[in-house]
């Protein structure tokens, strides 16, 4: 493949790939987890390099403002999560939940997952992107099933079936897009390359594009976790290892969302096609309200936050569906903040679940009494995810709601109600978990809380001050998204 000109980009793929092979070969979890961290860190560095030097687009890979946002974000969270997973895995081996062989496997798959996601984000070819997303799905399926408990298997099986159906639908949509492009761009690669697609989009057959978007929205929407295609998400989050839950919520959902956005841009570029906005808005609102109510009946901490991921994906999809520079900016910001916050929450949840030995909320009350640091960390995380200032999500929710109310007042009402419903449930659970009489075991938490508070402080900073570069960059992207 012609990667000659794209050295940094190829590094972004080569490092995880090589690391995956190496980790598959190497024994000993201490070393491997260190390598894991190192590889993820390197990947992150390469990603940051993209901010400064932007290679020219190739036939397979390309870099533009939009996917740089996603790449940097996902590599960063991949890095912090790998740091978290190091201490987490150590504990898992200590308690014998994982055998060293499985840990070796785990690390290899972790890097493979990183590779797949980077590929999906950098792909300039809709077919290649599809392949990457599918690989990402399969790797995460394996990850979810890694504990081999009946519950884990059931979750992984469900994830696999639903995920591959979604993927299949996405492929059909991709084929349709090709068919609509083929008369204009001629047979062959050109009709599958983003850069050329975007240029010629106006000339494509709009009707075919409409049908294609239905499939793509449902297909990739399954991976985003939008209701009613969300079913795989809670169990997959709950039964897999917690670092994987963090990766799922923080990264994989974004990758799928990225695909949706790309195709939305394609449709937006074609005047005759139906505007994708209403469909996204509807699915977003549905997910938000549905997940908001589902939060009330959750008694498992990881499922709770999994549903909150559905809720926030709904908000983000809603924002992008609304469109316009303000809402798009809000959507991007919200996505970034949500990834940071949610992965932070899952770090905290991982420690808590390990200390308390259960994921049941009833078994982990009074945290601020028994484990002040992690308890208040969790409270801060929940307050952040619930959209309270001065944390970052408040800013994005402020923009989403106010811009919606300024443009479509009637749409803002269900939005606000959904936010309020979800807030109520989260608050109830947070008070229940963090306050009151402590239950369960109370020994110290030896794992490091650095990743947790690193994320939280970033979120806090963003809530107070956004660096101008970031803002102009996001604004460009928002304009790009139309």
């Amino acid at each position, binding site marked *: 493949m012609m990667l000659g000109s794209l050295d940094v980009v190829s590094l972004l793929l080569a490092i995880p790939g090589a690391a995956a092979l190496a980790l598959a070969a190497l024994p000993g979890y201490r070393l491997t987890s260190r390598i894991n961290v190192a590889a993820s860190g390197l990947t992150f560095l390469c990603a940051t390099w993209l901010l400064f030097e932007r290679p020219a687009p190739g036939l397979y890979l390309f870099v533009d403002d939009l996917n740089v946002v996603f790449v940097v974000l996902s590599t960063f969270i991949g890095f912090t999560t790998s740091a978290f997973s190091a201490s987490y895995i150590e504990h898992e081996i200590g308690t014998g939940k994982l055998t060293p062989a499985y840990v070796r496997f785990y690390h290899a798959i972790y890097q493979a997952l990183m590779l797949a996601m980077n590929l999906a984000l950098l792909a300039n070819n809709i077919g290649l992107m599809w392949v990457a997303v599918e690989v990402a799905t399969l790797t995460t399926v394996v990850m979810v099933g890694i504990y081999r408990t009946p519950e884990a298997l059931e979750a992984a*099986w*469900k994830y696999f*079936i*639903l995920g591959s*159906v*979604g993927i299949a*639908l996405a492929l059909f949509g991709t084929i349709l897009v090709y068919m609509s492009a083929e008369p204009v761009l001629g047979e062959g690669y050109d009709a599958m390359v983003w850069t050329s697609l975007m240029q010629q989009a106006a000339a494509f057959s709009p009707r075919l594009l*409409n*049908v294609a978007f*239905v499939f793509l929205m*449902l297909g990739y929407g*399954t991976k985003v976790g939008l209701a*009613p*295609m969300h*079913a*795989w998400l*809670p169990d997959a989050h709950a039964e897999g290892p917690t670092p994987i839950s963090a990766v799922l919520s923080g990264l994989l959902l974004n990758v799928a969302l990225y695909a949706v956005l790309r195709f939305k841009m394609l449709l937006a570029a074609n005047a005759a096609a*139906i505007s994708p906005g209403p469909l996204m808005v509807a699915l977003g609102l549905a997910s938000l309200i*549905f997940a908001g*109510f*589902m939060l*009330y*009946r959750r008694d498992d901490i990881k499922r709770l936050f999994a549903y909150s991921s559905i809720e926030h994906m709904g908000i983000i999809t809603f924002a992008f569906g609304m469109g316009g520079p*303000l809402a798009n900016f809000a959507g991007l910001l919200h996505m970034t903040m949500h990834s940071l916050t949610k992965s932070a929450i899952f770090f905290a949840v991982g420690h808590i679940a390990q200390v308390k030995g259960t994921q049941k909320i009833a078994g982990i009350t009074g945290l*601020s009494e028994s484990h002040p640091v992690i308890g208040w960390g969790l409270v801060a995380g929940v*307050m952040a995810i*619930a959209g*309270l*200032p*001065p944390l970052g999500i*408040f*800013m994005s929710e*402020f*923009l989403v*709601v*106010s*811009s*919606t*109310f*300024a*443009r479509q*007042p009637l749409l*803002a009402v269900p939005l*606000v109600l959904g*936010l*309020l*419903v979800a*807030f*109520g449930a989260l*608050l*109830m659970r947070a*008070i229940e978990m963090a*306050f*009151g*009489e402590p239950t369960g075991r109370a020994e110290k938490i030896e794992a490091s809380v650095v990743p947790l508070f690193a994320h939280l402080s970033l979120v806090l900073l963003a809530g*107070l*001050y*956004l660096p*101008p570069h970031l*803002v102009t960059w996001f604004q460009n992207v928002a304009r790009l998204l139309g």
Partner: protein
Amino acid sequence: MPLTIALWSAAALLGVGGLAVALNGRIEATRIVYGLCFCLCLILFMTAVVPRGAVALTMVLPLGLPWVEAHFQLDVLSAFFLAIVNLGGAASSFYAIGYGAHEKHPSRVLPFFPAFIAGMNLVVLADDAFGFLVAWEFMSLSSWTLVLAHHEDAENRRAAFIYLIMASFGTLALLMAYGLLAGPGGDYSFAAIRAAGHEPWKLGLVLALALLGAGSKAGLAPLHIWLPLAHPAAPSHVSALMSGVMTKVAVYGFVRIVFDLLGTPAFWWGIAPMTLGAATAALGILFATIQSDLKKLFAYSTIENIGVVFIALGLALAFKANGMALPAALAFTAALFHAFNHSLFKSVLFFGAGAVQTATGERDIERLGGLIHVMPRTAFVLLGASVAISALPPFNGFVSEWLIFQAILLSPSLPQWSLKLIVPAVGATLALSAALTAGCFVRAYGVAFLGRPRSKEAAAARESDPWSLSAMATLLTLCLVTGVLPSFMIDTISPSARLFVGGRMPAQEEIPWLTIVPIAESRSSYNGLLVCLFIAMSAILAARLIHVFASGSTRRGPPWDCGCPDPSPITQYTGSSFAQPVRRALGNIVFVARERLDMPAPGDTRAARLGIEIRDRVVEGLYAPISRATDFCADQLNKAHFLTIQGYLGLVFGALVMLLLMVAIWQ
């Protein structure tokens, strides 16, 4: 310059919060933190009261929303409320230097107390919608953690839950209001909002949203239910801040939006605040009258006072809409004046409740009594505060309510019929609640402080520490001073009145004898100083003369009590028996009060008992259905969590088929 200092001090307050975390567990942390808070609040108070002329100071910092940035301003209105906030903040910090020593886990209070004060300051200083809302919600959040300070009590946890839900409901309402005002362009600075023109329907919607948002924070009925739960749950110095100051910040928010940002009102704008305020006042005081928990009682009386303030604000709107500048200024001044007064005496009352609680460990007045003997100083200060809040001369509470009555007396000249019919009813409600207030506080003070102790804790109580006492005494002195010299307050408020309702009351400093004259000498006038002097002089004179010329001799004896005194303190009149007449006469207006008398049959030896059940119509009629509906939806939707894989596939399949059908039909 003052604005810079104010912002730095607010930042410093946040820093103190961090310091408190660092000092966690140290024994002297309490004194250090509260001492620092006291100094910073004093500085902020100075920046508020230092004369700067009518021109507003503004400042822009590169924070918050990037393309809006964080605007701050210090105009006359902000300055006035800044003074309220920091007066209360300084007093409660000073009080807490002594009171805080009794705190069980200070690590749950110290970090958040300065943050709370900082939040309130920033709300008052903010000059753009985003900054305002951030500060607003931050204020709620920090006070929420303080409400959770004693989290081991399930009641407090529930209170905290309801509190934050209502708070963020209010924030969302305000958020939508600002979204509507700023428009899709998204320029959220107040200056831009003022500059932009708005359609009438938009303004009406914004008014409603502002009532929802600010009202839910201020405790306006029917959004008040969180207040009597949350305010008592916090430590007393925090309760004082929440009740005395935070509600005023909410009033500020309402004034800022409705009087400043919305421009010229329509006549019907005044109706909603007026009627809601009247309802709130009556409801609040009636509930206060039947409470037996001292802090709950004070919280309900806060609701009543907020109602009074909103009545005055509604009047001001109505006058302003009809271009009657002078009456508008009168009503506006009365509202702000009453807000200030309430912040003073309500803080004292909550301080007193805290002192009583530390001395006896009791908040239930049915288990108190006779405290006037064991803690005379506290008793004296609280007596003063009760007189002040009961709107009796010569204290300040009377002056502001007197001004409101004067404003009502000017309202017949309003042209609209709806107002003509509403205002008198509102006035009657106001008078009723004012009278009930006196009764309510006679009951509270009489049962808690007078008579004989009803429990051994009450008998063993000790006088509270000098810090707390001096804090209370200072505020009470302020109450008296503003009561006898109201003209200074009126002249202080006049500039903001001129700014926001386009008129001002006659300058009071020119009137001789320090009299206040709302409109004209011939209409009405009041001289607190003379009244106070006359009362004092004639009382002292009478006492002196009698002791000199008649007998001054005194003998102590057993109580007379119609010849059959009963030594056991249980025979005293209890709080609930005291409230019985009001409960019977007025109770069923807002709450369902049922008395269940269980009288044993003749010959049966078991004791007769009288049970009282109070049911809140608002909670039952408004909030219970909402929570039921939420539960119902949650239950119904929750079934979707337990489908089989085919079920989920079926969902996807259904969605796909439906969309394809839509596409097929659409094409």
